[in-house]
């Protein structure tokens, strides 16, 4: 069990692929082949891992064979398994999408290796069982993302990239400070060990609230929660579409994952305060996101503000910290990663085809692109949460949990936000695909088979995910268990001792 390579493989593979591509030098075509093969392999491996975890429980490996509370452990539980599979699927489709959209120059300057290093960091942050190691992996994917956001040297990219860099460096420093507090209080960095120590301690733990506030600050910055979202709309608007798709689908979700993990494991003593703050921030995020989504007609901006709404909804689910809420939040998290990736890829196709960012400038595309149009329609319904599609189930559980916990206002805000999501995205749909075509709108002649393959592919993944919700329920129940019942996460430590 301890020497099982499976939990390490999703971290090793993209790193290896990146290094191999560095050896190849500036040759885009081999880069494409390597990255496509690697991401396809990762999809297969992580899908098998889910089956394996479902049958045998969480996979744990102790790096360097140092046993658990002392060394770094990699805990590949169901949450990690689901997130890794989703990451791999999005990676695969985005890499295929990049072939025809990112541009030869960017491909030459190590675009694919940087994507692979970023994925290494993201998957590492998902799977590690050590909070300091999580910080390290945060840095790994942030470093790669600094490169990706500025790759290409356009003015807007440098400007927004610098903002992104400063914000993240500051919040990473606070992460380190928070870790130092945590270590000085508990004397451990292993998340399971900290959980056991804190739950067995019956003295006053008021000081942990301070750590909770520092952690809220850090992860709210990474996830784009309410007062600290200011960098997000600008920074996510700057780079080319495939990079935005990766950022929007994956990076903010790492922040949410970190919030869910730390708040379920560490901050259980004063739930009335910490989780209320979290809930309040989440609701404010939803409201600000709604305002943004209504205010813009720029396609990228609308979807970026929709990311904020989704972040808020997921955090509402996690702030409840009961079974129903955790299942809903987990399901909605996975759903949102897939559908945000799909929407960015679809919008990207429209932008590449028409050369316009603003939906007001486009019209009547349904005649030339009926498939894209109706795929966009399905993706929009899925985002808003119309029943057979996956958005519905997640929101159902989250709202149910909010009502059960007497947070009626939260539930109503979440419900109303779906209406606004539907409105904002339908506004795009009607502007772009119906109406009379605008004057001077010319469709560019671009190669688009791979663009369409990945955009439609991701929507199909989302539909399949929605239709198999019933079949997947036990999997998500297992995943949510480590949130609403933290001791199930730290069980592996008991087996060691």
């Amino acid at each position, binding site marked *: 069990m*301890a020497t099982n*390579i499976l939990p*390490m493989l999703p971290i090793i593979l993209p790193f*290896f692929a990146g*290094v191999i591509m560095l*050896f190849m030098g500036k040759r885009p075509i081999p880069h494409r082949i390597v990255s496509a093969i690697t991401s396809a392999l990762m999809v297969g491996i992580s899908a098998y891992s889910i089956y394996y975890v479902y049958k045998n429980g969480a996979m744990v*490996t102790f*790096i*360097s064979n140092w046993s658990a509370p002392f060394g770094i452990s990699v805990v590949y539980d169901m949450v990690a398994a689901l997130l890794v599979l989703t990451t791999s699927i999005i990676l695969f489709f985005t890499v295929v999408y990049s072939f025809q959209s990112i541009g030869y120059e960017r491909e030459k300057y190590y675009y694919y290796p940087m994507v692979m290093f970023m994925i290494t960091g993201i998957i590492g942050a998902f799977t590690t069982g050590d909070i300091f190691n999580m910080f390290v992996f945060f840095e790994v994917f942030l470093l790669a993302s600094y490169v990706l956001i500025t790759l290409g040297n356009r003015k807007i990219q440098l400007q927004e990239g610098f903002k992104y860099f400063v914000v993240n460096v500051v919040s990473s420093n606070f992460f380190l400070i928070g870790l130092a507090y945590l270590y000085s209080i508990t004397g451990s960095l292993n998340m399971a060990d900290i959980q056991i120590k804190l739950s067995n301690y019956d003295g006053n733990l008021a000081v942990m609230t301070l750590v909770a506030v520092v952690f809220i600050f850090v992860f709210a910055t990474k996830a784009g929660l309410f007062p600290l979202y200011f960098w997000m709309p600008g920074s996510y608007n700057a780079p080319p579409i495939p990079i935005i798709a990766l950022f929007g689908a994956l990076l903010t979700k790492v922040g949410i994952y970190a919030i869910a993990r730390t708040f379920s494991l560490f901050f259980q003593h004063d739930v009335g305060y910490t989780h209320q703050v979290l809930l309040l921030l989440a609701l404010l995020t939803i409201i600000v996101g709604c305002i943004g989504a209504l205010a813009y007609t720029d396609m990228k901006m609308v979807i970026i503000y929709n990311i904020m709404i989704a972040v808020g909804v997921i955090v509402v689910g996690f702030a409840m910290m009961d079974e129903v809420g955790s299942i809903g939040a987990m399901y909605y998290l996975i759903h949102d990663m897939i559908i945000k990736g799909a929407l960015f890829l679809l919008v990207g196709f429209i932008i590449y085809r028409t050369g316009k960012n603003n939906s007001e400038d486009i019209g009547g595309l349904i005649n030339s692109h009926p498939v894209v149009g109706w795929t966009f329609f399905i993706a929009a319904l899925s985002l808003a949460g119309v029943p057979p599609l996956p958005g519905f189930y997640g929101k159902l559980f989250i709202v149910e949990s909010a009502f059960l916990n007497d947070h009626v206002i939260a539930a109503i805000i979440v419900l109303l936000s779906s209406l606004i999501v539907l409105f904002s995205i339908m506004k795009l749909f009607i502007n772009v695909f119906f109406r009379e075509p605008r004057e001077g709108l010319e469709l560019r002649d671009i190669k688009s088979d791979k663009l369409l393959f990945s955009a439609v592919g991701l929507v199909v993944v989302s539909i399949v995910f929605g239709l198999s919700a019933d079949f997947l329920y036990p999997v998500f129940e297992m995943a949510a268990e480590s949130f609403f019942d933290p001791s199930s996460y730290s069980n592996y430590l008991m087996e060691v001792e």
Partner: protein
Amino acid sequence: MKSTLKRAGYSKVQRQMNDVFIQFTGRVIFLIILLFSVNMFLAGHYEPGGGFVGGLLAASAVILLLIAFDFETVRKMIPINFHLIISIGLFLAIAVPTALYFFGVPFFTHQHTYIDVPIFGEVALHTAVAFDIGVFMTVAGTALLIVSLVGGMDD
């Protein structure tokens, strides 16, 4: 950079600097720093030091040469591609821990053995050294690449 300086009237900056003292001592100190960096690197197994510090020291030795001479001369002295160094270093850093699975132990678990070498006697062979060489090369290569790129020298 150069044109800005030129416009400001610093045309002398363009000229090759020929400081005999720094060139002569640089050549000597270069070797001393390199030896010290190897010493640091090997000390890192039991004492403070290791691949990271060693790599930085090795890079600083080359940077000293860059200060003393110009880039072309240093390029002739040390005809290495920095990209390749980084690639090899990263490759060692990921391949060695992965290869350890063949010993039936988890990721990163080090393995060692002792062999008899004619003159030196018993010598320890350790997989951690191979990993650390990877770190050494990555750090040195990255530092040099950054300096050469920021210095405006295109490779």
